[in-house]
């Protein structure tokens, strides 16, 4: 029981993720989450605006079922498999965040300053969430995949384009975390 409630280490998580990929391959599919966003666009009628959305999206319903499961799995884990929500973060990280105005109180996976419902009371909160989402949706489709499709599926299959994409993921991530985020948080969003 102890194992169920305590945080799972990387050497449990990584192998299970690779097993999920393996099973999807054995089921004749691929492991890639961002494709769902394109499927959703097509299901909502986006083919009227671009041929990019003209494809047999119904053949991708299995992948929408995977993310439906992901929501349910998140619900199950959050409600029945965790007692203590604190994360064993590096104390240095906690200190850096405090300087940016983000208080780590150990009670949640997400900072309240960015994700609590009260964020939606200001237009800045909407811009933050919406624009962050746009970067994810635009970037993954331009690159043709995300962490699951490129980093894990692509690199596992030794795809050079995936390596370029992953270098891009980290290049963008490092610029955001080290240069842009401090400006966004302390000079714009948290004021």
């Amino acid at each position, binding site marked *: 029981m102890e194992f169920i409630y305590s945080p799972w280490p990387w050497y449990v998580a990584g192998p299970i*993720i690779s097993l*999920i990929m393996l099973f999807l391959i054995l089921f*004749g*599919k691929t492991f890639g989450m961002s494709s769902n966003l394109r499927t959703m666009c097509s299901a909502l009628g986006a083919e009227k605006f671009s041929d990019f959305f003209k494809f047999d999206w119904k053949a991708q319903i299995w992948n929408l*079922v995977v993310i439906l499961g992901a929501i349910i799995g*998140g619900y199950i884990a959050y409600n029945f498999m965790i007692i203590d929500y604190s994360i064993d973060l590096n104390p240095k*990280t906690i200190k850096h965040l405090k300087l940016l105005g983000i208080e780590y109180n150990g009670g949640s996976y997400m900072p309240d300053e960015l*994700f609590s419902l009260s964020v939606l009371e200001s237009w800045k909160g909407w811009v933050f969430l919406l624009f962050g989402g746009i970067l994810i949706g635009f970037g993954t489709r331009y690159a043709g995949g995300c962490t699951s499709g490129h980093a894990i599926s692509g690199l596992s299959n030794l795809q050079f*384009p995936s390596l370029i994409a992953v270098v891009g993921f980290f290049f*963008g991530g490092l610029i955001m975390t080290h240069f842009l985020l401090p400006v966004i948080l302390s000079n714009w969003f948290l004021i």
Partner: protein
Amino acid sequence: MKFLKFLLLGILFGIIMTKAEIISWFRIYEMFKFESFHMYGIIGSAIFLGLLYIQIIKRFNIKSIDGLEINFVPKKSGFIRYFVGGTIFGLGWAVTGACPGPMFVLLGNGFLTVFVMILGSVLGTFIYGLLKEKLPH
């Protein structure tokens, strides 16, 4: 019923993303600060084992459960789309702490504001579809 196996894999995905704290904004921030091995261990071990599985499937010509040949479609060659698209996604990943999979897991964890982010990501995909022909690939 044919969807049940996908639902179960999705549930396992949601549980693992939550239990290993992969959906946490704090963990992603810590990763990009190089202040923890956790996320690198997860991604690295998943790739290492994935390499092994795919080599085994190819070497022994293992078929899918429907008895069909398993095809690994190679990614189209190119540079700009992968690097620029990847960089844009990286910016979004680091600012929101989320990827297209974990976003949905966060919803299940009760973070309802993430719904706005999901809307944004669908919108971002739509914008790409509109601009696709004009973008260098």
